[in-house]
């Protein structure tokens, strides 16, 4: 088999595997999920998921971690949230701070 055909095979197989994993999650019977304890767990999983995404988005850099313009941007976002600013203001303020600091030479 040529390299090109082998790559295609890998693309299709990996796509099928990733879709099947997602589908299996959707096929979990609903009565398993109705238990209050499962509902509490899923609420905490959301919190952990969001916290992990904040961390990885704010400090992840290639394979490692880095402190850069994202940290002051995130601090501004937290301040805006503490002042009860609307969602879109929080997001745009963070982007503007990071973009401005990078324009000034911060990594």
């Amino acid at each position: 088999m040529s390299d090109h055909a082998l790559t295609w095979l890998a693309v299709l197989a990996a796509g099928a595997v990733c879709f099947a994993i997602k589908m299996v999650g959707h096929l979990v019977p609903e009565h398993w999920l109705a238990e209050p304890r499962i509902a509490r767990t899923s609420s905490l999983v959301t919190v952990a998921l969001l916290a992990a995404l904040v961390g990885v988005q704010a400090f992840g850099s290639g394979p490692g971690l880095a402190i850069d313009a994202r940290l002051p941007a995130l601090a501004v976002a937290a301040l805006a949230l503490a002042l009860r600013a609307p969602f879109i203001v929080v997001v745009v303020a963070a982007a503007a701070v990071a973009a401005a600091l990078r324009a000034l030479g911060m990594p």
Partner: protein
Amino acid sequence: MSGGAAADRRAAVQQSLSVAAATGLYAISFGALAVSAGLDLPQTAALSLLMFSGGSQFAFIGVLGAGGAAASAVATAGLLGARNGLYGPLVSPFLRVRGWRRAAAAQVTIDESTAVSTAQPTREAARTAFWWTGVGIFVLWNVFTVAGALLGDALGDPRRYGLDAAAAAAFLALLWPRLGARVARVVAALGMAVALVLTPLVPSGLPVLAAAVVAIAVEWLRGPEDPAAAEPAAGP
């Protein structure tokens, strides 16, 4: 949360579009990297259409680009995609879809659609957020994959516009109202710490999965008492 169902839905759409814009544009980097890893344009586009999971896609082209075997590229992509299987049980109770819609929902069940939808105050807003975030990212991700593959890095680094900080801020804004209970604050701190400690050690995607496992462990170690501590927002 005030203003009724319409206001909840408007807020959900706004949050979804912010997250979709901040994450979808990263596909420029994916498209450019996939081509430099030796994939052609149709293969690159097929990956984003069929696999549609950022961590898995970057890992897949990383293994192939480094000269790894096709089978190990497939296995790595599957391993990193495992967390998406965990998200189905979180979103299917409020989606309530069957047939082809269920398959479509499964395909757009990723970190961002799960996070934005389950953070909503009502089931209706959760449904709205799931589809707007999932489909919004799907469209942008595929368009910008092709743009990145064709133009390389000529479009510029999304970080220059602060999009990485915008995504972090969006997730923080979704997390913020859920930190009322002490157990939630503990889980958030533990989840973020575990994800950050693991980030330099394991492929991307696994740190987020580990954080989710931490939450499950905390709930099951805590025992059945204290039922008011973690209020399910959009959950069943």
